[in-house]
């Protein structure tokens, strides 16, 4: 089977499975107003076509295509579909062992980067939460309406600057002879410049900075929905501030926290522009490695395998966190 065939067949299977689950979900004997009766034929068709296009053509099919690609060897176009185009695990073997044949040695360079990316993304997500929570709490429970408007504006305006520009700005700010080092030396805090880029401080700061809003808004939504009297009631019953936040506000905001943290984590682990510009020589964020598979080695199957490994690891991690915190997907999207 060729790539295209596999893609179409798998997509069709997924679609059938989805329709079947919908069918099983419907309670027997339940009378509901039909979809077309409710929306009219034209609007109904438009909705179905749009959603179908969005889900199938722009999401499911490319994904399935990539998964399929990752199980094929790298071949010139003329040999695609030929006798050598077989299913193989060689691309995943490359990630694990750094060689298509030998399994003697682990591919430490890539694996360290892989787990490092996930580990640091987790740490940065917590850091992001620590920065965002007070801001979100202030916006949701303390700020006056006019103050809130100013804060939201101040938070949003920096996002008009695009990712690459922002990354270079951080580079200028934090490079060896950059603004921050000049300032530190001028203030007499240090004699020799600090290597912010080499120590990855610049990368981590930029990653957290670009994901602040992603964290703040779900938190704000969740905290804002809490009755302020509950916070006062806890205070009145003798609770200290940290106790109120830990046992009254955060449990209430749990869906928002989970939603902000998963989004922030996913986006950090998958960020590409920021690591390309800001990563120090000793750090290998995993995404530039994937990028190199595609555009330096021109080995798309291997790139696909690397990308899918990262995606799976992220999904597993998020599912694991949800399992531990007892949250359901529906709650996060509330």
């Amino acid at each position: 089977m060729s790539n295209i065939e596999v893609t179409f067949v798998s997509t069709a299977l997924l679609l059938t499975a989805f329709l079947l689950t919908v069918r099983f979900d419907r309670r027997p004997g339940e009378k509901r107003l039909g979809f077309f009766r409710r929306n009219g034929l034209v609007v109904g068709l438009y909705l179905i076509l749009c959603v179908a296009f969005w889900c199938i053509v722009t999401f499911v099919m490319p994904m399935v295509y990539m998964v399929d690609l990752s199980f094929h060897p790298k071949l010139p176009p003329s040999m695609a579909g030929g006798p050598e185009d077989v299913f193989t695990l060689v691309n995943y073997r490359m990630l694990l062992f750094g060689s298509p044949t030998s399994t003697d040695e682990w591919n430490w360079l890539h694996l360290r980067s892989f787990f490092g990316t996930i580990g640091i993304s987790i740490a940065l997500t917590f850091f992001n939460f620590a920065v965002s929570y007070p801001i979100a709490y202030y916006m949701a429970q303390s700020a006056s309406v006019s103050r809130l408007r100013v804060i939201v504006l101040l938070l949003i305006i920096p996002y008009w600057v695009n990712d690459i520009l922002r990354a270079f700005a951080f580079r200028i700010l934090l490079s060896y002879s950059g603004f921050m080092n000049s300032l530190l030396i001028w203030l007499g805090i240090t004699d020799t410049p600090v290597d912010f880029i080499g120590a990855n401080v610049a990368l981590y700061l930029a990653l957290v900075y670009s994901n602040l809003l992603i964290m703040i808004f779900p938190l704000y939504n969740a905290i804002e929905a809490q009755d302020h009297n509950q916070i006062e009631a806890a205070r009145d019953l003798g609770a200290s501030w940290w106790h109120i936040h830990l046992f009254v506000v955060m449990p209430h905001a749990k869906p928002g926290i989970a939603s902000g943290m998963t989004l922030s984590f996913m986006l950090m682990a998958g960020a590409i522009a920021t690591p390309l510009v800001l990563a120090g020589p000793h750090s290998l964020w995993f995404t530039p490695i994937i990028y190199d598979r595609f555009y330096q080695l021109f080995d798309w199957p291997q790139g696909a395998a690397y990308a899918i490994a990262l995606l799976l690891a992220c999904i597993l991690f998020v599912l694991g966190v949800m399992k531990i915190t007892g949250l359901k997907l529906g709650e996060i999207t509330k």
Partner: protein
Amino acid sequence: MALTTAVEFERVRVDFGPFTAVHETDLEIGSGEFFSFLGPSGCGKTTLLRAISGFVEPSSGRIRIGGADMAGVGPNKRPTALIFQNLALFPMMSVAENVGYGLRVRGVARGVRQEKVGRLLDQVALSQHADKKVSELSGGQRQRVAIARALAVEPKVLLLDEPLSALDLKLRQHMRRELREIQQRVGITFIYITHDQGEALTMSDRIAVMNAGRIEQVGDGRTIYAHPQTPFVASFVGETNAIHGRVASVSGELATVDTPLGPLTGRNIRHLSPGATATLFVRPELVRLSAAEGDCSIHGTLSEMAFEGSMTHLTLRTPTDTRIAAMLVAADLSRLPGEGAPLTASFTPASAVVLPEAAQAA
């Protein structure tokens, strides 16, 4: 009245920007007292309550609780507990966890805590609901959870901010009795905020009637109802007929007021002098249809009659188009003429009060 003072206000004033929510207030509330602040919304009663609980700092003056100055003491350090209007129970906690929250933040050991929570839930008849979520309870049950949660921290003063307003009438009347019983049982000071005079009159030892940031009168329910000191108190607490005029003459305890309905006489409790503008107040239930010697009489026609079972409300319309309300018990109905018939209403001078005309009188 109680021997010791639980809460003391000394020249307490609260400003919100240019707006003065509470003007200089002096007040002492005795320990073990059931004390109510009664007034319309926006009169400053909730601000006073929040000042006691510590959520609002007075702009000037002092608040003492149990003799200790509360200036700079946060809400979490005060010997008070507040029951919020919407109760503010914690939805993510069970009933027992709600009740035990105050003990948990105080670091009370789990065993002691559970035992105490159990006892409190027993007292409010919620033992079998201990592990339920708050959202699974009825309105009255939630009310009792809020009371138990507040009592758990053993406050010296329990503050209640219109906690019954969300309940339906039957439940509200039941909870009035229950609150009063709980107060008598635990013996601590209850400070109750309400705009419902029925609640204030049935439960309280003493009532402070508030209007526009000022306490107009403090006293027990009967005194406030029978001897209002200001026009606002007279018209806010209970129904009343207000007849405006000018003091014509004063003799002893009584003053005669010249009104469009003729000279009417009432008790001159504020010692007004002849010539002062004044309003005479008389309660509908003290208006009678049979005049005796020395009574004041008002002539008019019977314009409305509303039968309400045990009571009948009558409206007398005078030639000058003033309406006088009267309330008769069922037994008196036999003597009534039909609607539109001429009627004379009367009252004894002792049942009416003459008060000075106030600018802000309702």
